[in-house]
């Protein structure tokens, strides 16, 4: 690790983004992102669509590549080094908007594939762990079904269990409830709340302001590729500082 990185490294930080920029071709998507997430901290990221929220969290596990600045996850700086990328991905779980379960594998196989092949855990043990997490997300009885046989809410809970099976220290949620039917949102949010209560480090891109108020330590508002405002939820909702934040909040709370 370079000296500069050492200087900036905060030992207690789970994730540090330092002066990060990203472009899609000529389009400057993320501009000078600086963000430190402490261990055990729960962060909700919100903002209008196209503001770069998803892109930012996808940079954290290298699903997107940043072109400038530093990303340090769990003390490891993300570079082009494939080993480091794999190391980080093992510690960082991700839940996607469209679940991205593996449709040709059963729920149980979805949950055990990575532990067996990446963590080299014996199959029986991996299955035991998987059942434990499936019980936590309250669908152990679906273990032998295929994802296509489950409802959206159930699929998303399987996706959460699948990530947890890798024992990640950090969880990223990329709009986990946006693709769900309204009556299924709460079952997924409940799972996420219980996870938050156990002290998991979480970054969650969501429009669920109720969730933000209940569990977030900090709410981050992004617009046009920049972090505009960050504050604890009470302050963020009751006393937003920036005009853009006020406008955004008035729009979503009006519709809610």
């Amino acid at each position, binding site marked *: 690790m370079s000296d500069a990185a050492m200087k900036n490294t905060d030992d207690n930080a789970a994730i540090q983004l330092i002066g990060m920029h990203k472009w899609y071709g000529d389009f400057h998507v993320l501009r000078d992102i600086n963000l430190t997430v402490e261990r055990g901290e729960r962060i909700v990221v919100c903002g209008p669509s196209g503001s770069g929220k998803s892109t930012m969290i996808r940079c954290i596990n290298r699903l997107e590549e940043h072109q400038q600045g530093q990303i340090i996850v769990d003390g490891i700086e993300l570079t082009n080094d494939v080993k480091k990328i794999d190391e980080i991905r093992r510690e960082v779980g991700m839940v*996607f908007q469209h679940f991205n379960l593996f449709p040709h594998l059963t729920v149980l196989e979805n949950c055990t594939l990575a532990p067996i092949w990446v963590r080299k855990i014996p199959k029986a043990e991996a299955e035991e762990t998987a059942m434990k997490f499936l019980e936590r997300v309250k669908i152990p009885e679906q273990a032998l079904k295929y994802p296509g046989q489950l409802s959206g809410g159930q699929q998303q809970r399987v996706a959460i269990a699948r990530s947890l099976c890798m024992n990640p220290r950090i969880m990223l949620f990329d709009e986990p409830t946006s693709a769900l039917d309204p009556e299924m949102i709460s079952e997924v949010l409940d799972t996420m709340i219980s996870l938050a209560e156990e002290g998991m480090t979480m970054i969650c891109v969501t429009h669920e302001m109720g969730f933000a108020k209940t569990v977030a330590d900090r709410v981050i508002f992004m617009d046009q590729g920049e972090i505009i405002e960050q504050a604890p939820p009470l302050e963020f909702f009751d006393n937003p500082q920036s005009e853009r934040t006020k406008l955004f909040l008035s729009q979503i709370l009006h519709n809610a």
Partner: protein
Amino acid sequence: MAIVTTERHPDLPPPVSQTGVVGWLRENLFSSWLNTVLTLVSIYVIWQAASSAVSWAFINANFVGETKADCTGTGACWVFIKARFGQNMYGFYPEPERWRVNLGYVMGAVGIFLVLSDQVKNKKWPAIFLFGVYPVLCYFLFYGGFGLEVIETSQWGGLFLTLVLASVSIFVALPLGIVLALGRRSEMPVIRMICVGFIELVRSVPLISVLFMASVMLPLFLPDGQNFDKLVRALVGMSLFSAAYMAEVVRGGLQAIPKGQMEAANSLGLGFWQAMGFIILPQALKIAIPSIVNTFIGLFKDTTLVLIIGLLDLLSIVKGGTTDKNWLGLATEGYVFVAAVFWVFCFSMSRYSIWLENKLHTGHKR
């Protein structure tokens, strides 16, 4: 005022269809006088064609005898096929050694059954046998060595040669096609260019010219005395040719897999090859099954083109038989026999692929 439903509507059976056999007939075949006429004309035509075909092939056909003189009936002379059956099946493979081919068939059939069947749960050993041991075993069994008399490939022929050509090409084309398809989607420019170049070059050339190249041109480029077996050259040509087709079929399957699958696999820490092997390829190949089997069937029938470079596959050996002066005038029987054999193999492949598609369909299975 609100309108509220308090009682649940009871379950009712679905409406009784008024069809039945008679209803179906009336609705689909005799719904108007025009339809009735069409139906009757069609029945007449079908009956005419089918009855004469059946009486030619079975009722009036000759099954017993040794020579053409025994064919006294008006129908087909199957004695012709029977008398030359050994040659049709094995070519000029010496008769006392034909048990080696049969043994190869039996082992292959058992291996294929164990690998493909639903009953067998642990497929590891059958797969190792079929894809690892069996080809080597067959080489020595068919060609010779280890105390077995060497049978030159120029003596191979008939259905045996057709099956060797088809199975070797299929065996090589699928894995090679997958590699080419992955290479074509690679982010490394050199690899991508090599794969695109190979696929586009081979696909743009007729198989006949590939075979000609392999059998006529290639020896010209090789130093004197250096020469491959003619069969090996045909095999290489056919394998590479079908690999190029296979690559495009597999690429189609790969492109149908949403990007999120690779992302999910990566986010769990699976590397590129693990994600490919466990997540992407199983799904892509499943989607591509109809096209893959389509290519296999095409390839199986394309093996008949080797007659152009003087290999005696099933079609060419039967064709040769029809010019035998003792059996003149029996070309129809010969070609019908060849068609029937090809049909059995191709239809089996087609049925297997349909069964496999249903088996692997996990999307909405309840």
